[in-house]
């Protein structure tokens, strides 16, 4: 199918986030966790506006836990609601999880360059 012209496309934003969990979650599990959290906090009607899509995922070292960083695509104007829902994520299938927001960006490239690279403060 031919893609829409730029004026008709949905405007997007990219949320860089960090997941800390007791065991490593697969990509599918993480997607399910994000959707569950959005649906629980905002309901089906509101979540349908978010247009969520998990773009990329990286794994980092962390003491006593698994740490991953990723980029989540959402519709512009709904970023704050998505971030609220991500903050509320607490556990998935008996595994304790915490999601921290690293930042918000207009492109995947700048989100990666600004937020995903490990910082000096991360070292314990």
């Amino acid at each position, binding site marked *: 199918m031919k893609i829409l012209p730029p004026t008709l496309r949905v405007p997007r934003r990219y949320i860089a986030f960090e997941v*800390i*969990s*007791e065991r490593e979650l697969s990509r599918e599990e993480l997607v399910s966790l994000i959707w569950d959290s959005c649906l*629980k*906090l905002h309901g089906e009607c509101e979540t349908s506006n978010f247009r969520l899509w998990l773009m990329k995922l990286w794994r980092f070292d962390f*003491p*006593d*836990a698994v740490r991953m960083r990723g980029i989540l695509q959402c519709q512009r104007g709904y970023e*704050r609601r998505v*971030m*609220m829902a991500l*903050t*509320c994520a*607490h*556990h998935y299938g008996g595994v*304790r*999880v*915490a999601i*921290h*927001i690293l930042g918000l960006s207009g492109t995947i490239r700048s989100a990666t360059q600004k937020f995903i690279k490990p910082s000096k*403060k*991360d070292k*314990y």
Partner: protein
Amino acid sequence: MKFFDFHIQGRDHDSSLRLLLEASRLGYHGGVLVYPSERYSDLKSDFESLRENPELQDFEIACGVMIRASDPRDMRRSVNRFRKKADVIYVSGGNLKVNRAACESRRVDILSAPYTSRRDPGINHVLSREAARNGVAIELPLADVIGSWLKVRARVLEHFREILKLQRKFGFPLVLTSRASTIYDLRAPRDIINLAECFGMKAQEAEKSLTSTPASILEDSGNRQLMIADGVRLLPES
């Protein structure tokens, strides 16, 4: 701007250290380790060693005691016992008589989650006025929102909204805390400010409840021993 996590549940030395290091990584500048009153004497030595830990040099730590009282008399007895030992005194809310006694006492710093096991928020206009007059802060622990879902979460958000409405009218201090017992319960200050929008709190209000309100409680706590009477403070000899 200095962010404080005003309720981190203290346990043994290692887990408390882990929590404080994680809080520091997330952007907090200080925190209060809260110990249950029953275990306070056993865990006080852990707190002293954490305070001297070189890894936490840039992180301000204070010691708090959580008092779980069955009636106002019991609460007053415990507050008198711990007032000089701990920096911050918390009273666990829920019982209406205890909520009232805590709001009426100048010696209590924080009334924690007054809505616990109740169908109402646990404070009304009378208690709000008393809390504002005596400088007793009301604690809204975000663990109650994050750790629950569906009906329970909706009810907690409803209580938070009611308390916020009273706070705007009567102006008692309000603190947002994580009440974290593991690293999975901690959230970054910006995430907490974002989440506070869920129950109608403005960004400035949320920021104030994470920065200036905790700082003023700690400052008052430091000056408490020099306060002779209301409005009278003992100054050191020059």
